[in-house]
Each structure stands twice: as structure tokens, then as C-alpha cells.
């Protein structure tokens, strides 16, 4: 079923649709809260991922750290943080990778220092399609 917030561009809330699609990938990400699980993942990422009922697409997106794809495959950004933290990277690395257009850490940081992404022109899919 469509939701009124589907018209907001570039936005992936955790609702019942993403919940079901992303359950296993999010529970993998959640497991990284535990030091013992982080150890297992660092020893062999693929083998650890294979212990979760994730799709092959989701596993590859994790291994290749494709964050925007992870969101499209059902992961939620709060859960995805666990992977960025696992890599000991600042979140701006993930933000920049997801941004349209794609930004480096420094570019993303600079955009925020300059006042962030403006709301004007970024409220609806229509604005993006016409822009």
C-alpha cells in the first residue's frame, strides 16, 4: 500500500514494508552491537553473513559497503550505523556515499558547514523530477 510519505524524495523510513524486506539484514546489523559478533564478522565476513537468512544481494551490499543499496534492500540507517562503526569510520562517510550527488567525507562536511541541504526543492519527488 502506498503511503503519503512515499512522495518525499530520497527517503527510506522503517515501516512494515521495509521491516519485512529488511528483517534479516537489520538483525545482522543489530548483532554488531555485541563484541563477540564483531569478532566473528571480522574473521570472515562472508561466513558470518551466511549464518543469517539474508538474500545474496543483501550480503554483497554489506561486503561491498554499498550503503544506499542496503537501504533500498530494506536496511534502516540506524542499523546501518553499526557497520560504519565496525569499520571505525565517521558516519559522514556513509552519508556522503548515499547523497545525491555522491559526496566525499570532506564534501559532505562542507555542505553541512555551509548550512546543510536546503529544504527548498527537496520536499517532493515531483520537484526532483522537474529539477
Amino acid at each position: 500500500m502506498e503511503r503519503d510519505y512515499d512522495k518525499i524524495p530520497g527517503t527510506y523510513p522503517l515501516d512494515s514494508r521495509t521491516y519485512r524486506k529488511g528483517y534479516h539484514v537489520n538483525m545482522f546489523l543489530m548483532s554488531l552491537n555485541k563484541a563477540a559478533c564483531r569478532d566473528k564478522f571480522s574473521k570472515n565476513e562472508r561466513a558470518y553473513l551466511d549464518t543469517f537468512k539474508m538474500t545474496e544481494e543483501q550480503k554483497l551490499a554489506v561486503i561491498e559497503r554499498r550503503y544506499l543499496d542496503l537501504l533500498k534492500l530494506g536496511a534502516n540507517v540506524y542499523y546501518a550505523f553499526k557497520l560504519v562503526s565496525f569499520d571505525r569510520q565517521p558516519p559522514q562517510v556513509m552519508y556522503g556515499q548515499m547523497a545525491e550527488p555522491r559526496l566525499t567525507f570532506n564534501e559532505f562536511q562542507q555542505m553541512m558547514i555551509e548550512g546543510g541541504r536546503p529544504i527548498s526543492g527537496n520536499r517532493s519527488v515531483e520537484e526532483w523530477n522537474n529539477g
Partner: protein
Amino acid sequence: MAKLTAGMGTSHVPGLGAAIDNGKTHEAYWKSLFEGLEPLRNWHKANTPDVNIIVYNDHATEFSLDSYSTFTVGVGESFRPADEGWGPRQVPEMQGHPEFAWHLIESVMADEFDLAVNASMDLDHGFTVPLSVAYGQPSEWPTAVVPVCVNVIQHPLPTALRCYKLGQAIGTAIESYPDDITVGIWGTGGLSHQLGGERVGVVNPEFDQLFLDNLTKDPLANTRLSHTDFMREAGCEGVEMIMWNVMRGALGDNVEEIFRLYHIPVSATAFGAIILENK
């Protein structure tokens, strides 16, 4: 009788905690923000209640897709800072107030709110960062705490009005607590920010400032906003601002705004803080 003295709203960005923990508050990126927070910290030094009710959300730390209640109250004797993936923050444990927490639960449930009760939840940055914003780096926190966790992550979320009404019920609970203690209430999270997707980094100072204005002058205006209003205007994660409605609902009709700070950026977020004294 217990007395609710004041409410605080503050963002709870993890980067703030990291800046404090790692001694970076004097660096160029943080300097003006932390200088701006000095009056807030001085106010807290002069106005330390016996217990703070802290309204926060858990970020896939203690609660997840497996179980996430709409409203959860912590009744533990103490609470540990959580491991969110990079090890727990090196901050003191938080002391609970089980007697007051249970009174609050009994009173609020009699007011038709169905609460989850939790004795052992670890508290993530959503809870510990506001403590650091207010109190810096003490060897122990100066007040007991009652955690009130609100689901603002996994839709369906409680409405902005429901959050305000929960605050009103908490206000009633405080008034009926027999001991002569002073109580503060904090709403945390926000202000405008979006952390995921191609629109990441969106902020909206006009929306944020109006929300802050309304907190003092017209709090019901902030209860008429839908989740989609928040998500569209203040970013997907800006919907956390509904937790400030809990804080505001607990306070009386007349409040005096005695502090406000608004600052962009903290990480990908518009930072906001406000102190409202109950009149």
C-alpha cells in the same frame, strides 16, 4: 509533594558525546556550539532537581525489529551506557528511581496509557548525550533518572498529539507523588535532520525555529503536525521532535523560555536546545 520545575529540549547527536569524551570541544568545529551551551550548563548547576525524567529513543541498541514498544519506562536501580557497536561510552552509570518510576507507571496507566516496563535496558547515545550536554563530565551524575523510551524509528509511531498527552499524564503523575522531590523533564532528539537516502543532510531552520517558538507560545500547534509533515519538512529522522512534545505536555500552560540555542551543523543535524521554566 513532588514539583516539576522545568523542561529541557536538546538534540542527542552521538558526535556531541564523542566531542566531549575525546576533549574536542575547543576545536574549531565545536567551539562556538559549546560556548553557546555555557549558559545552559550554568542554569543546570543552579537548578539541579532530585530526578530527571528523560524522554529519549533507542537507536537499535536495546530494542530492535524483534521487540520495540511504543512507550517504555525504565524501573531499574541503575542503567549502564550501551555498546552501540563501538563499545560503551565511558560515562558513569545512571542511577534510577524505581519508587518514583513505579508511581509514574501506575498513575499514567490509570490515565489510559499502556506502558511497557523494563528493568535492565542499557541506555544509548539518545539518553547519555543529553546528560553530557547538561552536566559535562562528572564522576557521577548529579540526579537520579527515569528513562522514558519512545518509538520514533519503526512506523507506526505514536502521533505528535499522543506524545503531548503522554506528557500531560506524566505531569499529573508528578503532582500526585507524595514525597517532596523536585523533578525535571527532558525531551531529546532532533531538530531537523535526515541521515539516510539521497536526500541526506537536509535541514530546515525555518521549521525548527517555528517549532521552538510554538513550544513556548502555542504548544498545541506542534501537536497538529503529522509524521509526514515532520519527515518532509524536518527530514526522515526529524520526526524525533515529537519527543519534545512529551516534555512540553508535562509542563503547565504558562512557561518561560529562559534559554535557546540553535546551531547548524552537528554532524548531519540542526542542533537545538531550549529550557522552559514552569510558571
